[in-house]
């Protein structure tokens, strides 16, 4: 369904919006115009044949159209849209933007769409509060707003399309797109101890794994002792943007590297102009790194 975009209308930009007379637009659909043509045809036939039945049906269809105008408008009128706190997402990927729809009454089919995203169709909306996640595809990193939200309905008869536009004001953190590529990686020298080498023995405590028991020393008549392994020093990555690449491209490669290093469970740090994160591991560290990339 195509709707006309009013060229000179100031779109409201806020964290919540109540749909009302000032921000709802309604026009007949193409089917609505066809319906009117049908009414005209029925009127003509009724006049020519002097048929009361046809005349009444023609007026009935006309009445349905006028009624549908109000019903379609009612379907949007009074709906409240509230921004939820959005989580971070990657650029150039479909990102979910959460919204809460608050309605005092049940509503029929609604269609919501963020600019450049897939439409979300709600078959019905129960009274109360409903959370929806609208997909969109951000192109740039940083704190981004998803742009225009288009909400429309043609229920119940499809004769009128009623729509509204809104720019949700809450920003979403957009991380640079993950793109594999070269990254400057400074690895600090560390001891390469094997996993198999054990360093020390200590008295065995009940409950410790039996695999750790030093059986040879037990055979020599010593008390039960456990082997103690030293944690081998891990590979540490300190990532920087690759020199010689465009900064944005380098950030995208970094985002990909951070993502993969996290998945492999390795330790990594990040050096960015004006910001440096020491090598660490964990979800929180990953998110901090990605946020640093997004805002660099």
């Amino acid at each position, binding site marked *: 369904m195509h709707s006309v975009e009013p060229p000179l209308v100031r779109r409201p930009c806020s964290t919540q919006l109540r749909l009302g007379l000032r921000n709802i637009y309604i026009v007949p659909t193409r*089917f609505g115009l*066809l*319906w009117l043509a*049908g009414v005209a*045809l*029925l009127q*003509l*036939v*009724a*006049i*020519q*044949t*002097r*048929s*009361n*039945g*046809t*005349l*009444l*049906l*023609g*007026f*009935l*269809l*006309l*009445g*349905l159209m*006028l*009624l549908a105008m*109000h*019903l379609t408008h*009612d379907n949007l009128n009074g709906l409240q849209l509230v921004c939820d706190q959005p989580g971070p997402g990657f650029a150039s990927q479909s990102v979910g933007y959460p919204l809460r729809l608050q309605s*005092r*009454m*049940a*509503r*029929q*089919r609604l269609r919501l769409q963020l600019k450049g995203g897939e439409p979300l169709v709600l*078959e*019905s909306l129960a*009274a*109360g509060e409903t959370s929806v996640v609208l997909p969109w595809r951000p192109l740039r990193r940083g704190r981004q707003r998803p742009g225009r939200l288009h909400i429309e309905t*043609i*229920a*119940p*008869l*499809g004769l009128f399309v009623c729509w509204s536009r809104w720019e949700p004001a809450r920003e979403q953190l957009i991380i640079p797109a993950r793109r594999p590529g070269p990254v400057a990686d400074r690895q600090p020298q560390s001891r390469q101890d094997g996993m198999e080498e054990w360093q020390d023995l200590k008295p065995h405590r009940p409950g410790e794994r039996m695999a750790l028991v030093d059986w040879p020393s037990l055979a020599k008549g010593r008390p039960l002792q456990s082997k103690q392994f030293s944690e081998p020093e891990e590979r540490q990555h300190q990532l920087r943007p690759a020199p010689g690449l465009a900064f944005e491209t380098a950030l995208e490669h970094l985002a990909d590297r951070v993502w993969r290093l996290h998945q492999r469970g390795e330790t990594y740090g990040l050096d960015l102009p004006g910001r440096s994160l020491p090598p660490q591991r964990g979800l929180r560290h990953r998110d901090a790194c990605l946020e640093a990339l997004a805002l660099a």
Partner: protein
Amino acid sequence: MKRTLAWFTVLLLVLQCPGLDLAWLLSWPTLGLVLFSSLKLLEARQPADHRLVALLQLLAVGLLAAQMPGLLASCLQLFTALFALAALLAQELGGVLRWRRLLLRSAQLMAAALPLAVVLFLFLPRIGPLWTTDLGSGQRAATGLSPDLDPLGIAELVRTDAPAARVSFSGALPLDPYWRVLVHDRFDGRRWLRAPVAQRRQLLTPAVVSDTTQWWSLEPARGRSVPWDGASLPASADLQIQPDGELTLWQPPSQPRTLRLQLSSAPLAWQQQAPTGRELQLPRRSQLPRLDDLAVQWAALPSDVDRLEAAEAWFRSQPFRYSLAPGDLREVGLDGFLFDQQVGFCGHYASGFTALMRAAGVPARVVSGYQGGRSVQPLGGSPYLEIRQSDAHAWSEVWLAGEGWRRVDPTAWIGGGSAAAREAALGRGVGRARRGGWRWRQWQWWGLDLAWTRWWLSFDQTTQAAWLEQLLGSSPSWIGLLVLAGGASALALGLRVMRWSGVAGPIERTLRLLETLHVTPRPGESFAALCHRAASAHIDLAVSLEAVADAHQQLAHAPLSRRERQHQHRRRQRALRQLARSVSDFGSGPAARR
């Protein structure tokens, strides 16, 4: 499900199609619409396609309504429109509602749109046809009277018992009436033919009907001439009285139709229309020598009335006998019938008498139509006269100077020629006993149908004009304002109906009621918890609030049988109604309560 509804609509449409008369031009677009919408439905994939199908089906219903205005057809059309609308609704609500609910919603929508439609229907001034086209070819044969009367060629008259017309009166039913249809004024020695009727098309503006006196409901016939009593004025614009006294429609009533007549105070012009000379025309003398010899004696009498009386006396003196099976008289001719065989039915007598009068110099012609009819008193409705094809009759009209055309029925002069005797000859008593139940039901149905017709079809352009004039008096320019104001309030009424009945479920209604008590749901609070909280705050509403909450919990979570579900539904409804009453009491007198 969307498809099921649409296919059901198709079925209903197809069911009505056999009633269409293909001779009427409008029937072809109708069939085309039905066919096209079905084909479109076959290949429909998108919602837009389904919507188009629904619109086409609604249009088809409109065209069908123009051609079949009867009671049964109107009922079918209403249901078809209901299903088509439900199929349209299913495009948007199909994911949520079952199809019974869809039909209910469709009926709701129609009911909501009806007030506006009725206002427009009643008040919007109508206009007559924009152009006149002969929409029917009139070539299709249907039961009815024949334009050529050839009694001598009929060895045995098999009278069909098909219905011909029904007529109801505002006053008392007439006694033994004659309903004239066709006038045969050309005679070739054996057959009586009709002069071709001039196709004059003038838009008559009929006088404003104050009192309709006759309501005719006609079965399809092949001619344009319709039965009437010869003394009434037509009350619709497409009826016209021909100079020879036939009442003609613009187009043959190829589908059942209705017409209205009103009693005329003055005698009509056709009765004084002087003969053109055609009414004296006879074949060459040699063809009917004995008839001529007899008539020449009467021609010597001084006046036309004397000649007529002489003829009556002669017919009464001869041993004529009424029979439906007189045998083939083509060999012996009219002379043979009048002077040798003397056995025949009404056609023979009218034919013989008219030829005699012409030979005696009195302008005369044969008229065919119906005589009598049975008076039927349906259970709930006004009595009406039922006319069947077996009531067909032929009689004569003679021109008497100073008086005009006088109806003469020679069949009545002969032994066994009276209407009652003819009834017996038809063996009607036996038929009635055999098919009594069926006939009785048919009569009841026709009574309903006629009542519907009187009620539904009576509101036409002329009635509306009279009605509006009565309503608005001398200021007809107010009609625009009236239509606008009426339409707006009707629309508001419809919207109110929709908003009140449509969307609000029990939870929403409860929430609304609680809001007036300043109890609003807290985040994360369940409906039952809300009701409990409200009940503790408003102890006087506690019983109904707890009942609503409990019934809701049962319906939402308990595994219930069908009957238990219905019980809980009813319980919730009852409690809600009670709650609404209490809350409105509360709202009206808060000071007294507190």
